[in-house]
């Protein structure tokens, strides 16, 4: 009797803990979904506007109709995920739900979708078409000019940042020299001052060395701003590479430089990729210094292009603004998606530093 009773108790306990686990997991998923909404909705809204807005007006009706289809789909998938245990069942459920959602969207908002807002990508002279040649012709560039300039600024400053931060981080990690600790403290102190506070002195310096109105100005300034932090990160990564490995490579016949390149550098690849991504995105999204370091329309980058589409040239066509935004976001979004793994390692390396 006693035995039977204990057995029953075990079963009850097992059932109870299974139930508790389900509830906890369900609550967790619900919570995460809720806090994701404010992050995702603006992006989605921008995207919806860019493919649905007609000249001039902005309406949210398409958004709500799309949400009416998508929100139930997401919840349905959440439910399917909890109910089905096998990966294959879950995949089937996902495919079916996606197909349903596509069909639903085609019926509810399909007629309102168009690509006219993306005409700036093929039409070199957006302004002339709107206002006639007299207004701003020749001043406002084709989007691809700004795109390539942005790419150039981001890539060049990224290359500079990565090169300098890697070499400096290695030196700081491996060599003892007079003033090393003060130098490290100095790097941290620089982080205290927001670079925008220095806009006017930076403007003067760039003006005096003759780089005003050239892309070289913002490239150098952006590099200088990011370097202290990046050097610190790289030092942390190098600190984590054991000395033995380097000594071993040197006794194996490598020169110090070869040991660095062939043995040490591969160990800090994660850190290099992380600062490369961060450095690139900083350059890609830069607005303040690219605006401050030009006095006319000497160069255009994506951020200034977006600003002028929104404010200056032609009044506000929110459809076009949204479309430009979407194009502007895509490169950083892709980078983040592919390099997420390395960006999460960054904290680890940083802590060690």
């Amino acid at each position, binding site marked *: 009797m006693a035995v039977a009773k204990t057995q029953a108790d075990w079963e009850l306990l097992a059932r109870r803990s299974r139930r508790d686990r389900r509830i906890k997991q369900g609550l967790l998923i619900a919570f995460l979904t809720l806090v994701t909404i404010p992050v995702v909705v603006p992006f989605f809204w921008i995207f919806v506007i860019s493919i649905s807005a007609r000249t001039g007006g902005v309406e949210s009706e398409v958004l709500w109709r799309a949400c009416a289809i998508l929100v139930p789909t997401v919840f349905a998938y959440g439910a399917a995920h909890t109910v089905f245990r096998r990966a294959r069942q879950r995949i089937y459920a996902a495919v079916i739900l996606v197909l349903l959602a596509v069909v639903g969207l085609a019926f509810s908002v399909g007629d309102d979708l168009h690509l006219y807002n993306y005409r700036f990508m093929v039409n070199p002279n957006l302004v002339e078409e709107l206002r006639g040649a007299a207004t701003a012709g020749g001043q406002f560039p084709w989007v691809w000019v700004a795109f390539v300039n942005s790419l150039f600024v981001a890539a060049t400053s990224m290359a500079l940042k990565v090169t300098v931060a890697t070499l400096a981080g290695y030196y700081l990690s491996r060599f003892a020299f007079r003033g090393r600790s003060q130098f490290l403290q100095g790097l941290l102190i620089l982080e205290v001052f927001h670079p925008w506070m220095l806009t006017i002195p930076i403007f003067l310096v760039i003006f005096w060395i003759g780089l005003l109105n050239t892309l070289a100005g913002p490239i150098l300034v952006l590099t200088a701003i990011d370097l202290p932090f990046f050097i610190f990160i790289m030092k942390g990564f190098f600190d984590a590479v054991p000395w033995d490995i380097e000594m071993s490579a*040197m006794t194996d*016949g490598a020169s110090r430089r070869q040991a660095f390149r062939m043995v040490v550098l*591969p160990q800090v690849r994660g850190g290099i990729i992380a600062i490369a991504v961060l450095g690139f995105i900083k350059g890609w999204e830069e607005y303040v210094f690219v605006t401050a370091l030009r006095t006319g329309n000497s160069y255009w980058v994506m951020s200034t292009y977006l600003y002028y589409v929104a404010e200056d040239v032609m009044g506000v066509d929110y459809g076009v603004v949204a479309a430009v935004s979407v194009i502007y976001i895509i490169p950083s979004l892709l980078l983040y998606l592919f390099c997420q793994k390395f960006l999460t390692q960054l904290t680890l390396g940083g802590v060690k530093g």
Partner: protein
Amino acid sequence: MANVELRNLTKVWDQVTAVDGINLEIRDGEFLAVLGPSGCGKSTTLFMLAGVYLPSGGDILFDGARVNDVEARSRNVGIVFQSYALYPNMNVLQNIMFPLRFQETRDAAAQAREMAELVQVGELLERRPSQLSGGQQQRVALARALVKQPNLLLLDEPLSNLDATLRLTMRAEIRRITRELAVTTILVTHDQLEATTMADRVVCMNVGRIEQTGTAEDLYLRPDTLFVAGFIGSPPINLIRLQASQRAVLDVPDTAETVGIRPELLHSAETGLPVTVTTVEPMGRETLVTADSDLGPLRFLEATSRPKWSAGDKLHVSFRSQDTIVFDGAGQRMSDLHAAIG
């Protein structure tokens, strides 16, 4: 394979002298062990030999030529590190082939394979270091150090990361491989068993200086200094500081300060020094007995696994006079002098 000589070699870090003018000659093909407690400067010496550290003074000679200024890469020295220092981004074959990338070698892969066979990791060539056990990593590190046929093989506490049984096999294995290749080898260790079992000759170091150089037997039976006597041997030697009360019991020269006697050379007897047993520790093959006497606490070994005595027993111990070691006030052994029960 080279003849290595150290002349008055010194290394100073800021204010600390890590290596203090050591002189040493290592013959071609010899297996030498450098033994000492941690911080005695043995690893610093090793890294100076490898060329990673620059000496602050003195000379390092390979086959009579001064190599102080020769870079690590050109010295053709192989090192096995305590942590093995395998390159995690390369597989086993690439690791072993790495030193050959800096030489003009036509059949690098074949040489690396041959070396891998010698150290018995021929099956593991495609694996990453993280997928190997400690013993396997150790073998790979050894193969990598040996593949370029080094002038000198340096082993920096190579066995201290292995478990006890593996240590035993690797000890024999390393000895076999170095004999087979007749490579001059220097082993740095703080484990006296490792040093005495593997090496032809042992150098005992303390605070940057060489205390004694000799065979394992020399160091054990005829330690030059008090430090060597105390450092080598387990259970440790009995060291008796001579004060008036001890001098009353022992017949020793007046200049002597300390008398040493190995625990296994003391034995219970019908007559001799009266002692009272305080602790009895069975150690398997033998039993370690600690007893109080007029000379202070004494340790002695009974060659039995069944202890004859227990705490509180009173008995007599004696020893042969020629088994005692006598040290003067400076801690130097006074040769040909011995102590006896007076």
